[in-house]
């Protein structure tokens, strides 16, 4: 066990993967000598040489397409998109090829490749640097979508992603890059993809979150505990595959649920979670599943991002609206809110 930041844990995962599997490769924009703008690939070119970790020309469809070709040719590319919005030029490559090649070829070709995408906001980044784009990928069949919230998960989920026979979109919540935690770099842990984690137990309501929203959820649970409300916190860890079992057993126990996502709400992952939970836990629910999210607006300029981001208060407000008492829910009387 070692305390390290998520950035360091990711770096360690890449390093160990490059060491253990000679088919593994790292490439992208500025991942070489610079070590990436977030330094996730720091030192890799030095340790493994330009052949194993290299800078590409500046073109994201090119990066992803090159990875497709190299994966077809037997390599295991791990590529970096510099920021969330800068993965959009690669969208066709991702949706029409990365997600589909196994399917198109009846499994004769597979794409063991990882696309790392630093995502979401909260770091004072200017426009186009803070998009929450996970839903685009989660909605695309054929992609696994993974997002760690702790350094330990960052290390192991990235190791799992690189070892996976299928393409993985690995979403890194960039505001957690500098968060610290204990990390086991030793023996491979048991939980793989599709295993949510119950980060805190509670009996009154379940908070379901992932990636950048996990610290918010945990703080909210802590604050609620002061008021005598015991919130259970579930961290999805992998959006696809989805861990219905853990989510459902938690909500069936608590009977109430708030879903938290930083992304704009409409048709996001939170909508899927809410829809699934009410489908599966309807008779256990004492109140509707509520969602807390960013607003349906383009990501705001840094000076206004605090107004947009779901924070502890927004979560607690939602918890308050879980009809523990008899008050009506003012925000969901359609059309009646100004």
């Amino acid at each position, binding site marked *: 066990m070692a305390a390290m930041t998520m950035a360091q844990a990711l770096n360690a995962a890449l390093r160990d993967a490059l060491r253990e599997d000679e088919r593994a490769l790292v490439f992208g924009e500025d991942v070489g000598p610079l070590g990436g703008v977030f330094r996730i690939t720091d030192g890799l070119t030095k340790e493994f040489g330009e052949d194993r970790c290299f800078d590409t020309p500046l073109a994201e469809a090119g990066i992803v397409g090159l990875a497709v070709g190299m994966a077809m040719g037997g390599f295991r590319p791990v590529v970096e998109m510099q920021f969330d919005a800068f993965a959009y030029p690669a969208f066709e490559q991702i949706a*029409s090829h990365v997600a589909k*090649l196994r399917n198109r070829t009846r499994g004769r070709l597979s794409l063991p490749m990882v696309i790392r995408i630093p995502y979401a906001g909260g770091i004072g980044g200017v426009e186009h640097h803070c998009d929450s784009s996970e839903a685009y990928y989660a909605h695309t069949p054929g992609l696994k979508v993974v997002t760690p919230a702790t350094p330990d998960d960052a290390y192991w989920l990235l190791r799992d992603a690189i070892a996976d026979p299928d393409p993985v979109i690995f979403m890194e919540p960039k505001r957690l890059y500098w968060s610290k935690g204990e990390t086991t770099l030793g023996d491979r842990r048991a939980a793989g993809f*599709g295993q949510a984690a119950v980060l805190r137990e509670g009996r009154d309501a379940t908070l379901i979150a992932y990636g950048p929203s996990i610290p918010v959820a945990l703080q909210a649970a802590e604050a609620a505990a002061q008021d005598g409300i015991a919130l259970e916190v579930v961290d999805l860890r992998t959006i696809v595959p989805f861990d219905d079992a853990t989510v459902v057993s938690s909500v069936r126990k608590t009977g109430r649920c708030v879903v938290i996502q930083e992304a704009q709400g409409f048709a996001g992952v939170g909508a899927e979670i809410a829809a699934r939970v009410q489908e599966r836990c309807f008779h256990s629910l004492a109140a509707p599943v509520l969602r807390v999210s960013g607003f349906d607006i383009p990501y705001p300029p840094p000076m206004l991002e605090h107004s947009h981001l779901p924070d502890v208060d927004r979560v607690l407000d939602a918890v308050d609206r879980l009809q523990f008492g008899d008050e009506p829910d003012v925000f969901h009387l359609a059309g009646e809110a100004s």
Partner: protein
Amino acid sequence: MSVRTSRQTVDGLLPSPVPVRFVAEDGTAVQPPAGYPVPADERLLEAYRRMVLGRRFDRQATALTKQGRLAVYPSSRGQEACQIAGVLALREDDWVFPTYRESVALVSRGIDPVEVLTLLRGGWHCGYDPVATRVAPQCTPLATQTIHAVGMAEALRRKGQDGVVMAFIGDGGTSEGDFHEALNYAAVLHAPVVFFVQNNKYAISVPLAKQSAAPALAYKGIGYGIRSEQVDGNDLVAVLSVLTAAVEHARTGGGPFLVEAHTYRMDAHTNADDATRYRETGEVERWESADPLARLETYLRERGLLDPEAVASAHQAAEEFAARVRDEMNADPEMDPFELFDHVFAEPTPQLREQRALLASELTAQED
């Protein structure tokens, strides 16, 4: 402030100012340009037989659309010199990254014709085994395959193999951003890949003049530092000679190569298209006189390489092939609906297992 330009490199990258040609439209030999040898007789004869077969296969496929046996078929009639030379220039262990229009090339590569037509008949997306055949799935999203080709070329190079990758693309496809990114990546990586542009003058209905204002598409190479050439795409001898040189260039560490072949799509874009909406029949007729197969036949006859018997036997083989294709395509393929869930991931997710069960219950209910 180092400037890498020098007249010499620049001229070394630019294509011939007119398309390379060995055989005139009437089949007579013209003075071949320096640097490109005439392919060996046996290769030319092999090319001839394959062109005859390719054309017959193409005609058969078009016929199958009329019988409802193919969902759609993009014919390459008129482009046989390109289709055949494209694969003849390669070794078996080289890779091909084709578009949807390369059915004839793929058949010529030796892939089972029913497997080639599987996509187009509405069967599974890719009918053949890409690994065994070293042919990537026929690619529909335009130009996307060119960058995969670069990745494969880079993979071969890194594995110490001397394989070459040929990426097929049309004139329209060169306008897509992915083509640009592929050329640039290939050049920077010095990857052993040949970009083969079949400029058949149309992208569905859009004529070349609305597609590009370049002197010729082959002039795109220099902007990436890629050696380029343009060739008369209806002259098999020329296409084969230039592609062979391009493949050799790539194989021996010379880096990528861009070849533009000037050809013409004789049929409509696909059977679903109505070409009379956007081009004059006169234009099509003019291109009939530049037919690549007739041209090669005349040339080979004049050179005394081809006798009536050989012609007849080529046609005979083609007829037999077409008959086999027709028969096999008349059988309905077995399709297993549960396979829908098998190839999304190596292991289906719990969600996919659930959905599979839903389909199973639906199918059971239908049977009741």
